[in-house]
């Protein structure tokens, strides 16, 4: 089966006044249709930049300097601006960490979702497969918007917005249409963001820490919602998060990143059963309540040191300065990403 997304040797660097920051430095991964991939790692390891690279939205002074991003067989990095915009918010959507700052404060929720629909509605082919995904579950009219030559009618768009708001389980969708972002709670704002992201029936949803800014009960609700939506719409999700608990809950496979590199890449099940990289082990040990066998250890494990400066990358293994199992060779040469078992990749000499 063809992969939905295939990222090959992606390198995204920031050319700052202080030097080059290799935020993403040779990342390879792929994603099947309907699959959820977790992307974890400490702050600053390049998760968001990886996500933004797929959207081709890397902010300046950042640049994708190398790599290929195949989406449905097309290399996204070869597309021109116009073609890229047709995919953004349509076939690939993204939601962000802080829904409050991510929504424009001066437009209503409805206007903002409407805009996302309209920008992609004119001239879009009325593909039966695409719209049927949704129609199957919703009572509303078909989602195909290009029956009228100049795009969709006002009423069609309004109905579609309401339908999307229903889809993300917002109560009183007609009312929420007229609300401004600040009139909604954080969880509802994130639902609105998700509604907006779903407006084009995306095949891939990139969620960059979608629950980090929300409180715990709301976090669970949003994750559960994403799970339900994924099942309904059969879309793939790349979920960026710090929370391995969430990964365990919804991701099929996981990438553990450190300073722009993939350190471990395997199925979620495998990662929890058989964490191989010392960094992964450290992350898992740092979760409260996971290692309950060692009851005599009252304090939470902390990986020693902090993530180093992305400017002064060690010549060798990037985790070397903080690794508790470091050896001489780790300083001399960076380990390659090795397949230690089927579909279990680890970048460590010990593996």
């Amino acid at each position, binding site marked *: 089966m063809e992969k939905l997304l295939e990222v090959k040797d992606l390198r995204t660097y920031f050319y700052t006044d202080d030097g080059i920051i290799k935020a993403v430095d040779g990342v390879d991964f792929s994603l099947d249709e309907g699959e959820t991939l977790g992307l974890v790692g400490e702050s600053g390891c390049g998760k968001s930049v990886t996500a933004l690279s797929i*959207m081709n*939205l890397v*902010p300046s002074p950042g640049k994708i300097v190398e790599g290929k991003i195949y989406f449905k067989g097309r290399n996204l990095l070869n597309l021109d601006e116009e073609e890229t*915009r*047709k*995919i*953004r*918010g*349509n076939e690939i*959507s*993204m939601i*962000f960490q*802080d829904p409050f*700052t*991510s*929504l*424009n*404060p*001066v*437009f*209503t929720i409805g206007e903002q979702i409407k*805009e*996302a629909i309209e*920008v*992609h509605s004119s001239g879009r082919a009325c593909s039966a497969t695409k719209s049927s995904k949704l129609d199957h579950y919703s009572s509303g009219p078909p989602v195909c918007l290009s029956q009228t030559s100049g795009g969709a009618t006002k009423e069609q768009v309004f109905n579609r917005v309401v339908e999307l708001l229903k889809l993300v389980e917002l109560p009183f969708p007609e009312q929420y249409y007229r609300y*401004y972002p*600040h*009139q909604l709670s954080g969880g509802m704002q994130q639902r609105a*963001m998700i509604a*907006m992201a779903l407006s*084009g029936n995306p095949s891939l949803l990139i969620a960059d820490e979608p629950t980090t800014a929300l409180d715990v009960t709301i976090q669970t609700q949003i994750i559960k919602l994403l799970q339900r939506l994924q099942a309904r719409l059969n879309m793939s999700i790349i979920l960026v998060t710090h929370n391995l608990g969430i990964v365990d809950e919804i991701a099929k496979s996981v990438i553990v990143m450190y300073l722009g590199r993939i350190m471990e890449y395997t199925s979620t099940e495998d990662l929890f059963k058989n964490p191989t990289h010392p960094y992964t082990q450290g992350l898992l040990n740092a979760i409260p309540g996971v290692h309950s066998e060692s009851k005599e250890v009252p304090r939470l494990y902390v990986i020693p040191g902090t993530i180093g400066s992305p400017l002064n990358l060690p010549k060798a293994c990037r985790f070397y300065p903080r690794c508790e199992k470091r050896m001489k060779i780790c300083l001399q040469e960076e380990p390659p990403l090795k397949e230690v078992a089927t579909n279990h990749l680890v970048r460590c000499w010990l593996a």
Partner: protein
Amino acid sequence: MIMWNYIARRLFMMIPVLFGITIITFIVIHLAPGSPTDIVAQAGPKVSFEARERLTKLYGLDQPLHIQYLNWLKRFIKLDFGSSFKDDRPVMEKILERLPATLFLEGLSLFLIFLIAIPVGVLSAARQYSIFDKFTTILVFIGVSVPSFWLALLLMISFGVKLNWLPISGMRSIGSEYLPIWARTIDYTKHLIMPVFVSAFGGIASLSRYTRAGMLEAIRQDYIRTARAKGLSENVVIYKHALRNALLPVITIVGFSIPGLIGGSFIIETIFAWPGMGRLGYLAIMERDYPLIMGVGAVAAFLTLLGNLVADILYAWADPRVRYK
């Protein structure tokens, strides 16, 4: 309904502020050296003494300051501004006949400031570090550094005296009322060009900077990334999503710029002999015409407060976060 309550409350709150401003104005003019009776004194030492005494009594200047202020206030509350020392005409009448010229000049300047500064600021932000941006940065630097009186004199010398293209003073030429309408319009316009330009110049410079800064700030926000992630074109992202937000603080600037414009009108109207309230006030100060100074001061203060109120209402109307509180 909430809006009307708000406006009423704000209008009510203007009263103490206005009251404070009149006290300060009153104290300052009495602290300043010189007195309304000085002019009479120039007639000669002998005549002057008695005349001075008589005038001092007549104007009530022999009374203690606080009594003088209270007397003024009592009349002011009844909207009676008193009469000018100079020609004994009611202050209100003198101000009202000059006010339209000032409002016209300043209104036009304000309009020009917005018309020019906002597009300039937006474009230089959208094309940060472009040649256009660098060029306007230099112009802005000149604009905020050049004193308006100096600019006025420079323009008068070059376009008025040397080139003789534009009239250097007044609102219209002598005898212009006998001209046909189109010629009269041209005559008015020619008289307007330099005063409007000078009074708008500094405002254009600073407002375009504010707009540029507001735009750059807006462009950095998360919702701009969201707008791009939706697949919107760069034009929609900048000129819809960023601009709407960048213009909010600009509205507040209207409020701030009004005192500057009114203050500037004293200088500009005097230099260009523009028959407005600013020139009236300037002359009143020179002649120590206390009732007229107080009257002009109170009207200027009222206009400033009104401008601020209008700016706040506009802001509340434009920003849903304030509107729905």
